[in-house]
């Protein structure tokens, strides 16, 4: 008699074993990523050693030994004292606004908030009605910002007065008479001026760059020649030279009445400089759009301008987003160069105030520069993150 066949059928799966340690888990990750070869192991160890070497001192200097509040520099002069954040706190108003009159700071704040709001509206992909935002930001905002920051001259006062008479409004008449006295640009300074120079550079350079790039590819020889000369000449000299030319030579050549404002000169220089770099970035994008796209557009019967606007430009600009943002980041940091022509930008403000005898001490300069580094890093890092996000969103169509 055959023995009864006993069968065993499992009614459920046995629990999955954890993967072996050398395939998954933190240990495996470390092995695969940090110690996968001799060279990699050495580099990892060196990096760890570097971090261990630099971090404690940095943390101690920046945080533990730092002086957080003090009435003047004496506490920061004590031996062994770290970063003097008290000094940054005492000077933060000057670092932000320069010598802008203290009772009118709301004008700067309001301008910055409006600018930030409009920029968010323009840049945040999901917010609707970009057209309105663009008109507000590029056409109306500069005028409003100028009047807010600089004040109402005779011209704008006359305009408001005319409006007041037209609407017979006492409020407007009051505005025309009393509000917004002029605050000369010699009082402007600090972070606010850095942002202003960067914003003007960025806002002017993108459209100008596109125009110059198109002009460089134009079939009309005169336009092409002019654009090439402008691009190559401005790109061929350092920004410092452009600034010096604008600042010291211009007043010698033009009559007194025409001499541009001392802040206007570097603004023009920076905008011009940024535009030609942008032109070359955009040209790279234009050339990367396949010829077939042009031909397809022509076959559909699109006019030259429609072809550029609807077919070529969107593709070209998408391709060069990293290049554009790269230019913006470089421009943002280049704004510090305006200091050499006597404009009190953020870095210059720090550089001046570290000499204040009330605060001057062994750690003051380092503290000031550390603060500046953090400020620039935050802004540049935000820009680079934004560009990454936009690249990912816009690349959907081309992913296979």
């Amino acid at each position: 008699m055959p023995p009864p066949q006993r069968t065993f059928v499992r009614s459920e799966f046995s629990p999955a074993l954890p993967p072996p340690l050398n395939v998954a888990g933190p240990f495996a990750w470390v092995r695969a990523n940090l110690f996968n070869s001799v060279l990699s192991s050495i580099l990892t160890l060196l990096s760890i050693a570097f971090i261990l070497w630099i971090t404690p001192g940095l943390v101690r200097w920046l945080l533990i030994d730092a002086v957080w509040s003090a009435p003047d520099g004496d506490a920061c002069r004590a031996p062994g004292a770290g970063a003097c954040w008290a000094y940054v706190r005492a000077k933060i108003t000057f670092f932000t606004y320069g010598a802008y009159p203290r009772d009118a700071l709301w004008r700067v704040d309001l301008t910055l908030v409006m600018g930030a709001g409009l920029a968010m509206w323009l840049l945040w992909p999901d917010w609707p009605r970009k057209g309105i935002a663009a008109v507000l930001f590029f056409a109306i905002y500069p005028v409003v910002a100028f009047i807010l920051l600089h004040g109402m001259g005779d011209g704008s006062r006359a305009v408001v007065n005319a409006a007041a008479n037209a609407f017979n409004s006492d409020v407007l008449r009051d505005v025309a008479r009393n509000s917004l006295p002029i605050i000369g640009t010699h009082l402007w300074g600090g972070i606010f001026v850095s942002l202003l120079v960067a914003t003007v550079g960025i806002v002017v350079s993108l459209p100008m760059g596109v125009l110059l790039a198109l002009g460089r590819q134009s079939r009309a020889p005169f336009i092409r020649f002019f654009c090439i000369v402008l691009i190559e000449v401005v790109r061929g000299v350092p920004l410092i030279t452009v600034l010096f030319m604008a600042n010291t030579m211009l007043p010698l050549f033009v009559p007194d009445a025409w001499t541009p404002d001392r802040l206007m000169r570097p603004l023009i220089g920076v905008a011009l400089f940024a535009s030609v770099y942008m032109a070359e970035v955009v040209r790279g994008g234009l050339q990367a759009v396949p010829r077939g796209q042009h031909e397809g557009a022509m076959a559909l019967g699109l006019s030259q301008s429609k072809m550029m606007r609807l077919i070529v430009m969107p593709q070209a600009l998408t391709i060069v987003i990293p290049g554009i943002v790269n230019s913006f980041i470089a421009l943002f940091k280049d704004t510090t160069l305006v200091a050499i022509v006597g404009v009190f930008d953020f870095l210059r403000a720090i550089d001046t105030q570290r000499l204040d005898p009330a605060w001057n001490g062994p750690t003051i300069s380092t503290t000031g520069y550390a603060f500046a580094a953090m400020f620039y890093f935050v802004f540049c890092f935000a820009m680079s993150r934004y560009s990454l996000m936009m690249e990912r969103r816009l690349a959907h169509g081309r992913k296979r």
Partner: protein
Amino acid sequence: MKSFCTSMVTAVAALSLGAVAAYAQAPAPPAPTSKTLEQVKARGVLVCGSNTGLAGFGIPDDKGNWTGLDVEFCRAISAAIFNDPNKVRFVPLSAKDRFTALQSGEIDVLSRNGTWTISREADLGLLWAGVNYYDGQAFMVRKKLNINSALELSGASVCVQQGTTTEANLADFFRANNMKYEPAVYATSAEAVKQYDAGRCDAYTTDMSGLFSERLRLINSDEHVILPQVISKEPLGPAVRQGDDQWFNIVKWTHFAMLNAEELGVTRANADERAKSTNPEIRRLLGSEGDFGKSMGLTSDWALRIIKHVGNYGESYARNVGDGSRLRIPRGLNNLWNKGGLQYGPPVR
């Protein structure tokens, strides 16, 4: 695109034509009355070229108000003209564009610790209205070395900034006195100070005013002493354009008025009262007698205005760089002539 580029071309062409035209008519004959003074009065504000930031001489404070010895000099001119020390617009100028700004007429006076040299007057067409601070190169050493004179520095190692006249002056001084030294040369003054502080050298050298400011940056600033010898001449003072003699006089006599006031004991506090004094010198200075201000295009109480609003030279010195400030620079060469210094105000008569 086309219209844009064309308009750019037109604009550039127009600009260059305008530049040529403006250039052709630039040299105007010197006016008999002060064109600058007229302009300043019409504008209602004096435009003063200042340092972008030098402790004690020209530096904005936390609120952005300009302070310092050079700054107060401009306030004094403003007080003389407008009876108000605050009708000044300060234009911070870098070392590179300071003289161009004066030449081009962008500023009325340059009060920015500029050294008075022959080339700046002869070649650049400027005039120095006087010396409001006699500076010069000096040495800082550690107190514990027990050195009292720069002549005892033989064999010392000296930290110095590279490529400046400071470096050349240093070599000249040691050679002229037959002494040996070891230069330790650094690219920036900040680096040189740091190395001195770290004990790399026995002495650090730069201009006297700079030494007092740099000393604050040392870890134990009390352990360092600045030797009194001055080994180079750096006469710093306000400058104006050539071709406007009356304006030159106004700037020059603003300085002299402050000096004379100190010599005669007229201060900000007692100026009004001293104007009534019987001392003829004081009466002439403060305009109680004579009409000296009028011949310069000012009022007869021009000097009284200066002293009332800004104070005499000694007061301004003490407040900004002397005992009343953290710099605590001794008067030295900047004392009055009758107290062993070089500051000498010609008489008002």
